[in-house]
């Protein structure tokens, strides 16, 4: 049984919800109100994650002796939004506290095609790791500008926007050259990887931090492609897309 400690309006939580949906993994959500209650800084939550950050994923089906095996989950979801009582007991199973670590774990363990995180391909997983770090840069810039505007975080929003535009320019050029090599995803290959999911949320939400994507056409084409991945789901602030026009 997988439990995701989740906040609906969090882009980092959305990364995990996207992969869980695309891999068709059953899980239960435990809502942690990031704003305005700041429940991620509460004592009960810090007992689960001392860093006080979201998301956190707990996989109680994790058994160390079987760690190398991949098997689909059979359990049904427990009641969602069982928010009242905190689980203060030590948690059995695997607890992961970082969105990139969670993506790596879920893809490695539950993706039977091994395409989302091709762990046997050293070059690819190194490139994916580069983009996971790049995604953290987007979180530190575009996401912070969004928190300043929507949730009144006291940060230098102009500096965050300037940094985000630097990163978006780099990403747009990367995608533009990739398209000219007939590549559709951040890491070259036929199928998307967790690199795409790690970068997508705070880019698609960037306008909530007054960061326009008007000057990044290759980014806009790539976000459309992400939205057409089977199993794609939306969150507030993200809109679905129709099917691709056939030429």
């Amino acid at each position: 049984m997988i439990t995701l400690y989740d906040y609906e309006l969090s882009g980092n939580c959305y990364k995990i919800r996207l992969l869980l949906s695309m891999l068709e993994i059953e899980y239960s959500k435990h809502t942690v109100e990031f704003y305005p209650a700041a429940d991620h800084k509460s004592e009960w939550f810090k007992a689960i994650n001392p860093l006080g950050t979201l998301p956190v994923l707990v996989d109680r089906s994790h058994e160390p002796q079987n760690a190398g095996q991949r098997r689909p989950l059979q359990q049904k979801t427990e009641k969602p939004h069982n928010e009242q009582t905190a689980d203060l007991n030590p948690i059995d199973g695997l607890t992961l506290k970082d969105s990139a670590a969670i993506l790596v774990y879920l893809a490695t363990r539950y993706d039977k095609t091994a395409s989302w995180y091709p762990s046997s391909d050293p070059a690819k997983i190194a490139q994916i790791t580069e983009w996971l770090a790049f995604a953290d840069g987007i979180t530190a810039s575009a996401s912070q500008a969004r928190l300043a505007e929507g949730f009144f975080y006291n940060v230098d929003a102009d500096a965050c926007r300037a940094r985000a535009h630097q990163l978006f320019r780099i990403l747009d050029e990367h995608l533009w050259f990739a398209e000219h090599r007939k590549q559709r995803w951040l890491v070259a290959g036929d199928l998307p990887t967790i690199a795409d999911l790690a970068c997508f949320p705070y880019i698609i939400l960037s306008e909530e931090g007054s960061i326009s994507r008007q000057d990044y056409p290759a980014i806009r084409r790539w976000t459309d492609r992400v939205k057409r991945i089977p199993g794609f789901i939306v969150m507030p602030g993200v809109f679905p897309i129709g099917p691709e026009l056939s030429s």
Partner: protein
Amino acid sequence: MLRVQIASTMAMTETTCKDPVIHNHWHAIAAIEDTGSHVHHTRLLGEDLTYQASTARDTSDSTGDHEFAVSRTAAPDKLLPVHCAYGYIWTCLGTPAQPLFTLPEYAESDRNNVCACSVGVRVSAPRAVENFLDMGHFPYVHTGILGEQPHTEVREYDVEITEDSNEVIATRCRFYQPQAAAGANEGMLVEYVYRVPHPYCSILYKSCPDDESRMDVIALFVQPVDEINIRAHALVSVIDATSAPLAIRMFQQTIFGQDKPILENQLPKKLPLDPRAETPIRADKSAVFYRRWLSRQGISYGVIPAAA
């Protein structure tokens, strides 16, 4: 870089309020439950404010309640009028010209009163109120919750401006909703009544999934940060014995999160009051009355007034 600077310059347009009606109105600035005894900062009508639970400050001022102290940041010793109502702290930069509107349902003992959230949105206050009044966007923006295709029709409804209380009231509004509230388990034809008792506040009464004889209440209190930026405060007052406050808050935060990009992309950001500026359809009847009502009061803040 240039674009960023232009955007931030626009966002910081100095707009100290010259509109006497808005200047002398009460405005919500924060949820009581979110406000501690340390100093908080916000903006209202283009002016920086500080506020706090008033344990450490002299509150011998003669107006309003004294649980909270609110002042202009530039004049910390001159306390502004404070009124605590409906879960929120209200203040007035001028002299309150009239008491805050009444919302008697808030005091009913079996209601679950929840301050759902306070969210920043780059839009004028009247645009936000008008979006709140609009049922037509439900199936497209709140898909699967407040509406879904093919149930897109906004049926004929009634709107009036009441003589005694000077409010816009829309009645007989009906809409099919897949999940009308946090506690709803199935779709239902929901009946709505809208009140606009304040230029920047609207109250919606809707069929209660738990009790056919009563109405749930959702109120939008818009804090005009300046003419084109707001904090949207939501009060949810429901008859729902089972949903936890957190579930109610998350439901409303999802709805606000879906509205935010729609509102931020509306141009012009100020609401045009000239009836020819934007073409209404039948479903926009409440918006037509709302704009007319703002015009009659001479509102100029956050709107583009109609040419005389």
